[in-house]
């Protein structure tokens, strides 16, 4: 296999990983700060993608579409948090799973109601289509490269916010001891809404960026949601750093696995069997990775204690 193809696939894996991080960051923050397991996070991803597709169709501007994805997803997040999620913080995980599963049903069918079952299309803008030449003669999609860079920038911004700003300090304090920071005069319920909206905005943003590569349709959030779960389980729930490492690991494993495993089996099997065996194993690879990590670190790579 050519080394160029390998690098190209590695870049695709990185792009996938960076997008997974945007999803997983919100999930892990929400779990870390509020102790809530949120299945509806995939729905917020979908809301972002639909908002972007509808805005792009109405205005023709991709940048406006991205802004819309952030705004609408954050807005949906605020509504969901204040109406439903807020009542779940003191409940056990079973109630949280069920209530947010109910939200997923409502979001999915509601969107189908509003937009129909056919996928919408969100085109990447002209100024981002085409390819760029990278060093060593690698040709790569400009849009995917942009996604990687934007995603990394958002990740850096998030790390900076958590580590350096007052709001970040409060979020970290909230993870450690919520009674104490409430006693110190921080409006804890406002903080919770804010964290939820932040996670929702990140998810919606990821939905819009990916929506331009894939199609925008009902149910697009669930596969990503489950991958994001795998990511935060590998990384350690509540850890942003873990989410980042986990996301890149999962993105790389999945993308490279799909490319390399069929080739690997091709070395000693006939082509058809090699392709099907390789593809089947590749689809399981990240779960095997997760099982492997948990065997040695039951709390994930960066999980506490």
């Amino acid at each position, binding site marked *: 296999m050519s080394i160029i193809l390998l690098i190209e696939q590695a870049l695709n894996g990185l792009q996938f990983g960076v997008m997974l991080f945007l999803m997983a960051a919100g999930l892990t923050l929400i*779990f870390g700060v509020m102790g809530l*397991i949120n299945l509806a996070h995939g729905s917020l991803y979908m809301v972002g993608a639909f908002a972007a597709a509808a805005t792009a169709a109405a205005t023709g501007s991709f940048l406006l579409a991205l802004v819309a994805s952030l705004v609408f997803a954050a807005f949906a997040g605020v509504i969901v948090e204040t109406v*439903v999620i807020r*009542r779940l913080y003191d409940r056990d*995980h*079973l*109630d949280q*799973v*069920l*209530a947010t*599963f*109910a*939200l*997923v*049903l*409502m979001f*999915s*069918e*509601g969107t*189908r*109601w509003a937009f129909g079952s056919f996928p919408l299309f969100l085109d990447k803008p002209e100024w981002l289509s085409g390819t760029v030449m990278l060093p060593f003669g690698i040709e790569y999609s400009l849009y995917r490269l942009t996604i990687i860079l934007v995603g990394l920038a958002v990740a850096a911004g998030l790390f900076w916010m958590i580590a350096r700003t007052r709001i970040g300090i409060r979020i970290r304090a909230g993870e450690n001891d919520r009674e104490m920071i409430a006693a110190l005069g921080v409006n804890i319920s406002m903080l919770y809404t804010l964290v939820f909206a932040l996670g929702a905005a990140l998810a919606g943003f990821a939905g819009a960026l990916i929506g331009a590569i894939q199609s925008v349709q009902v149910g697009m959030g*669930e596969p990503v949601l*489950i991958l994001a*779960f*795998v990511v*935060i*389980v590998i990384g350690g*729930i509540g850890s942003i750093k873990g989410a980042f490492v986990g996301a890149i690991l999962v993105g790389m494993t999945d993308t490279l696995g799909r490319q390399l495993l069929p080739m690997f089996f091709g070395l000693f099997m006939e082509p058809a069997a090699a392709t*099907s065996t390789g*593809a*089947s194993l*590749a*689809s*399981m690879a990240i*779960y*095997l990775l*997760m*099982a492997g990590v*948990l*065997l040695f670190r*039951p*709390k*994930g790579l960066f999980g506490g204690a």
Partner: protein
Amino acid sequence: MKRETLLNLGLMAALLAFPLWAYQADEPFLITLTTRAVIFAIAGVGLNFALGFGGLVSFGHAAFFGLGGYAMGILAYHAQTYTPLMEAPFLIEGTKSMPVIWLVAVVISAITALAVGALSLRTTGVYFIMITLAFAQMFYYFANSWPTYGGEDGLSIYIRNDFPGLNTMDPIQFYMICYVILALVLGFVWAAARSPFGLMLGAARQNEERVQAVGQTPYRLYLVAFTISGAITGLAGALFADLNRFVSPTMFAWNMSGEIMIFVILGGVGRVFGPVAGAALFILLEHMLGGLSEFWHVYLGAILLGVVLFARGGLYGLIAGREVAHD
């Protein structure tokens, strides 16, 4: 008699009377609908064994449901095409015999539940929920990408499998098979919940340290419970596949795990007969809301949300009172 016992008896009587009435009235569709409810009830009773009695929130029981389904699908497929399942090292042929298929479904799901449980039970809380979910997804994607047995299109079985002395294609006869299995499973779970093992399991759910202090290993109790739970749900999967004469990866899908969980919650967690009430209610809602609107999942979601937020304890909690049976 306690209200819960009355409710149990009423429920089982209704599940017997309704299909017989439908048979008299020549409404085979209603019999099939009730068969679905009974099979879902078995799946729910299986999950409830881990969730209600052991406190193990498994979000991946679709894995066992699907495995049971595929056990039926694969065996019947080979019988239908007259091809052996395996030739070396020894010959395994497909079969159309229900009891054999059930046995295979139970054994395969039990072994898988043992392996999945052994790994997943190293973790607790949210990790456990997500890991069981992820394992089920693993099976889902595997079934999707494995072309031998239909891949994402699934497998069709043209004729329902055989049970000695019965015509299984007759809806009411197939219903009676499912009903008897449900009754047997309920009897088993009822006895297990009152056995020393069941009591110890309940104790471990409430306080692991104390159980350890009297010399028991919670991990081992949980693992046994999880294995039994998976085996029962696998059996339900085999029946479900036989009902539809079709298996597809959707049996492994995460919505399936969610739905099995809904049966348990709607009925009442930790009540032996809870999932039966839950599954019956679910099918009833599906039938009624489905007639109301194409987008009935919106209403289902709203009702589920209402139950979780305001009516904890499900149907049994509402009717029989909250703390009667358990704890």
